[in-house]
């Protein structure tokens, strides 16, 4: 029987209408989670990819700087005995086809090992040392021995050489003793030896006829650089006493290979396979693996009786690049780990937000018979709706913004964030809706018990964090540039106890303040502080994350500051002055009139001249000698950050004349310490001086840093002192342009080194520049995370706050007061984050600072310690407060849209 109802009242009238607040709030929470995931995934993808991009750019630059031969894998085998003993066995001799097959076989083995070969560039050859060359129209001068000839067979001669005259060698002409090899020579070889097409030569008893003149297509390729004599004759000094000779080469044709092996069989013969590597797709992440593979591929099993030796120049060229990269990455790893921790906290807060909004819904479902697993599945499904599209968008946007090599780390991070965002809501739901029996049997704990639990849990976490920090200190810091996991976790370990202590203590402080506020007339402080105290426990996660974000930003800024100081120090170390003019050798040097003109240029405050000569310390040991006016140079050095110049150690003793004999005081560099003892004889400028080493000097203007040098006072050489070749200038606003014009005109060929230009070059170097950009990006990411955390924190407490404010609104609270209450409520967390962040950042300087090798950023060994900078801490504080203001404004705008009535209904 149906129930007949009375005429319906208006469907949407008054009491019968239910607002959509609940559904809207749930959608907003899901949107917030989606936005969170999008932002976090985007940052997780872009930071590592951008970092990888810089590093790969640097790596590729390093590859390009390495000669082509070093960028190839060389396989060679000595086939001298093989051809000699097995001449009669045609199958065993290394024919053209066999050379090719062997090359393919070796290439296959190398590829299996994981090397990225460039198959199109691969080539092979046989080199036979033919011996002294005779018959060249332009013989060697009498002081030289006859040229030595190599006969080369190469597989790609027709592609790597361009024929400019005649034809490429085809086949050996004639038989027996009359057999004549056809050969091709490069134009450089032909010019040096006076050869032309048709020239007849003889080497190792073999007759040769030049049939072609060729030019290298790519002179820098391995084809022409693995044996430099192939491109042009090389003057070779076999021993210091023997007469030099020209090493030359001529190419034979493919059809002449077997004859070459047969006829030039008493000379050294080598089979060579060259496998250029395709390094264009090798990313910085893959470089270490590449090096490891290259180091492992040092020999191959014997093939057809040949012992093939594998070598590559990259095994020496790569390690310094990788070491610099590792050092920079080491300096960045605490930042990456900290940002990951902040991201994890944000995911948890986002899940809390979603779980909170769906709590009523899930409670209804549980009452309707849903099991915990079903509720968890629903929570997971609800999370998937915003999370998966947001993650896809974040990944896509991240990939588009940072084109470059594929970063496995970026994709793993994105996957981890997505998985965390999907798993957290169902896990929270399971925790909240586990059996009622458990909740009922264990009655809700009183306040005292809850407080005790809080302190016990906090103490346990603090103990773990402090224990980790103690272990970190006790095990000592790892070799700089190789940060381990514990050191990378230092910011998180330092932030955790700070956050717990601050959040645990500030309710006490708030209680005191609230008591004071009650004496005031207004409601803002009373309500704001009371709400802040009520939400204190829920502020642990946001405070923890904000402290880490603050510390990351501050630490990154401090690293940047230290790098800047190191760059400046490196520029001073390299130049010792604001400008250094070095005259070309062999000229008149810097005349006194020129010195005066230079010293009077705009911006020049001080000038000091240096005469740089070469001296000999006996036993063939040479070193640079810098002759200075000690007082003049000391004045210059005093005006620079360079260490003071000890002019007093070079002072002329009273009564001692200029240029007199006797022991002369000298300052020597650390490198010269092994060359000179405490007292040594130095021959310089035509004089033999007895030196007395008065002290050490690390560097001086005009002399390359790190070289062996000695500094003498000008009076020691008397009138034999040569004219200065170097003038060092000091003046922060020195006019480099005017200096350059004057010097170009007055001292042709002179070199000008401006410290400011050098500093720019140091700062712009790719690896450190990329590292600094990554630091800046990390600091920016910390800022974005901080804003999101602040917003999340406000949104999580929004419902109860809006209800409170709406009720107060009905009692006469104004909108300005509402905003102030929100600000006062949030202030304790923000101030805790500032205070905790400062403490954390300051703690990180001694904890992790020494392990960070900032020298990698400057490209030299100048070590500048990390320093706590109050300006930086102040700037980061200002940034956080600014973000808090932005978050409060956004929160206020969102709250206004709801209105009082809606808020009050939403609280029912």
């Amino acid at each position, binding site marked *: 029987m149906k129930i007949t109802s009375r005429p319906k009242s208006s469907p949407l009238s008054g009491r019968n209408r239910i607002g*959509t607040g609940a559904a809207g709030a749930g959608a907003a929470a899901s949107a917030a989670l989606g936005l969170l995931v999008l932002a976090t995934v985007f940052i997780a993808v872009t930071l590592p990819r951008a970092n990888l991009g810089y590093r790969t750019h640097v790596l590729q630059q390093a590859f390009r700087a390495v000669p082509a031969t070093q960028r190839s894998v060389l396989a060679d085998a000595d086939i001298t005995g093989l051809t000699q003993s097995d001449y009669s066995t045609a199958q065993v001799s290394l024919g053209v086809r066999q050379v090719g097959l062997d090359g393919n076989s070796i290439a296959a083995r190398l590829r299996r090992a994981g090397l990225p070969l460039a198959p199109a560039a691969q080539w092979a050859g046989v080199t036979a040392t033919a011996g002294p060359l005779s018959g060249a129209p332009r013989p060697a001068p009498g002081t030289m021995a006859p040229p030595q000839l190599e006969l080369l067979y190469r597989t790609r001669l027709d592609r790597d050489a361009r024929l400019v005259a005649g034809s490429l060698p085809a086949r050996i002409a004639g038989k027996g003793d009359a057999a004549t090899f056809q050969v091709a020579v490069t134009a450089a070889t032909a010019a040096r030896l006076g050869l032309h097409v048709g020239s007849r030569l003889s080497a190792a008893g073999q007759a040769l006829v030049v049939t072609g003149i060729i030019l290298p297509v790519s002179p820098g390729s391995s084809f022409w650089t693995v044996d430099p004599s192939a491109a042009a004759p090389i003057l070779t000094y076999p021993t210091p006493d023997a007469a030099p000779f020209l090493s030359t080469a001529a190419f034979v044709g493919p059809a002449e290979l077997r004859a070459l092996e047969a006829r030039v069989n008493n000379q050294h013969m080598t089979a060579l396979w060259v496998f250029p590597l395709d390094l264009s797709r090798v990313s910085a992440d893959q470089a270490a693996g590449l090096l490891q593979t290259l180091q492992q591929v040092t020999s191959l099993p014997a093939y057809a009786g040949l012992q093939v030796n594998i070598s590559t120049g990259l095994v020496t060229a790569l390690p310094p690049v990788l070491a610099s990269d590792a050092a920079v990455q080491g300096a960045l790893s605490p930042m990456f780990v900290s940002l990951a921790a902040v991201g994890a906290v944000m995911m948890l807060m986002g899940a809390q937000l979603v779980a909170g909004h769906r709590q009523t819904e899930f409670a209804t479902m549980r009452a309707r*018979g849903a*099991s915990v697993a079903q509720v968890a599945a629903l929570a997971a499904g609800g999370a998937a709706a915003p999370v998966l599209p947001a993650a896809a968008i974040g990944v896509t946007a991240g990939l588009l913004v940072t084109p470059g090599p594929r970063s496995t780390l970026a994709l793993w991070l994105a996957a981890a964030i997505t998985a965390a965002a999907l798993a957290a809501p169902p896990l929270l739901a399971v925790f909240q809706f586990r059996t009622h029996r458990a909740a009922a049997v264990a009655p809700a704990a009183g306040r005292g018990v809850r407080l005790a639990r809080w302190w016990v849990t906090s103490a346990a976490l603090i103990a773990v964090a402090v224990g980790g920090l103690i272990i970190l200190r006790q095990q000592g810091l790892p070799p700089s540039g190789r940060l381990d996991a514990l050191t990378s976790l230092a910011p998180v370990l330092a932030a955790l106890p700070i956050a717990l202590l601050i959040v645990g203590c500030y309710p006490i402080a708030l209680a005191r303040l609230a008591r004071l506020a009650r004496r005031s007339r207004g409601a803002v402080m009373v309500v704001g502080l009371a709400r802040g105290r009520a939400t204190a426990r829920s502020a642990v996660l946001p405070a923890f994350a904000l402290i880490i974000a603050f510390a990351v930003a501050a630490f990154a800024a401090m690293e940047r500051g230290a790098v800047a100081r190191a760059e400046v120090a490196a520029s001073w170390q390299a130049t010792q002055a604001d400008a250094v003019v070095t005259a070309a050798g062999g000229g008149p040097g810097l005349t006194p009139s020129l010195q005066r003109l230079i010293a009077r240029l705009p911006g020049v405050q001080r000038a000091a001249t240096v005469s740089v000569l070469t001296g000999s310390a006996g036993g063939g040991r040479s070193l640079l000698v810098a002759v200075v006016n000690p007082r003049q140079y000391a004045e210059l050095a005093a005006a620079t950050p360079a260490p003071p110049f000890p002019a007093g150690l070079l002072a002329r003793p009273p009564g001692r004349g200029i240029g007199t004999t006797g022991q002369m005081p000298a300052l020597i560099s650390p490198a010269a310490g092994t060359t000179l003892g405490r007292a040594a004889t130095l021959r310089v400028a035509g004089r033999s001086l007895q030196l007395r080493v008065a002290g050490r000097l690390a560097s001086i203007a005009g002399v390359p840093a790190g070289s062996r040098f000695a500094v003498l006072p000008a009076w020691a050489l008397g009138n034999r002192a040569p004219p200065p070749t170097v003038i060092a200038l000091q003046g922060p606003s020195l006019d480099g342009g005017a200096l350059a014009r004057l010097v170009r005109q007055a001292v042709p060929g002179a070199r000008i080194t401006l410290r400011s230009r050098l500093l720019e070059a140091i700062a712009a170097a790719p690896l450190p520049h990329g590292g600094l950009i990554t630091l800046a990006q990390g600091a920016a990411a910390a800022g974005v995370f901080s804003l999101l955390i602040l917003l999340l924190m406000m949104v999580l407490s929004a419902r109860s706050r809006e209800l409170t404010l709406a009720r107060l609104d009905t009692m006469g609270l104004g909108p300005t007061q509402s905003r102030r209450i929100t600000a006062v409520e949030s202030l304790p967390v923000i101030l805790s984050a500032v205070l905790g962040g400062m403490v954390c950042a300051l703690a990180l300087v001694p904890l992790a600072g020494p392990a960070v090798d900032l020298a990698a950023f400057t490209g030299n060994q100048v070590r500048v310690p990390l320093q706590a900078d109050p300006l930086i801490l102040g700037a980061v504080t200002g940034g956080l407060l600014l973000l808090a203001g932005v978050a409060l404004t956004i929160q206020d705008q969102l709250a206004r849209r709801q209105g009082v009535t809606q808020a009050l209904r939403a609280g029912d």
Partner: protein
Amino acid sequence: MTTSDAGGRHRRPEAGGPRQPVPAAGLGQLQAELEPARAYGEGALIMCDRLVRIYAAEGIEVQALQGLDLLVAEGELTALVGASGSGKSTLMHILAALDTPTAGKARVAGHDLAAMTARDRLAYRRAVVGFIWQQTSRNLLPYLTALQNVIMPLRFAGLPRSQRARRASGLLELLDVAHCALRKPAQMSGGEQQRTAIATALANQPRVLLADEPTGELDTATARDVFAALQTVNRELGVTILVVTHDPAVSAQVRRTVAIRDGRTSSETLRHGPTGEDATGGQAVEYAVLDRAGRVQLPREMTRELGMKDRVRLERERDHIGVWPDQGSHS
């Protein structure tokens, strides 16, 4: 030896006289005395025996239920009334297996609510009891249509898909909200929402329906409609219904109204005669509940008026027990 008559009065046999035959009524009582004592609440669908629920909040213990006794027979439509904080909602949550008693017994349809495992609880909520809250926003998911809301418990219970829609449509039809099948809660009136909520609560064919102030947010006319729906469900489907209400109009339409005060049942009002929408009267008699410990809650207005407090004097009269203030006397 004494005997008692049908009215329970004890009589001494005449001294020295022959033994008279025992009247039939006395035989019934003798039989009752000789039979083994029945368990309390045996035969009742809902049995609460000295039910206690204590909450601890901020270090203070609150006794929401202080030894509540209640028996509800199958098929009854019973109203529960009481002031705020009297324990009504606590009782409802315990009966719905949403909470567990601190002490005492509670049994519904043979299920011991104090001794259930989580799995038992889940099965109980799926098959034995349905719950309706006051707030319609709590009863229905705002993003599902009426039909989907009714189907939801059937999904949880694992009912095959082919049967779900049929059963859900039937319930919506029964409650005269079939036209709302494809509407979301925001598109329905308050009355339609609550009737949909009733259909949702009945989806798994429970034996007991618990309604916690289902008409609290509705106007008079709509509340009447909703209550009429409950009555029809009780009548047509035989579902035992327990309704918590503050609405006197609702309690006036049920045969039995149980009042709860200070965590115990204090009185019951039984209506004899027709009830329901068209009830023209029916005699309502209020009884004070005599619990198993023999305690009775005297109405406050009576005790205040007569100046009764701390102690009262009981006097056994011929057919009643008199209750007198300790300083007064009757004349």
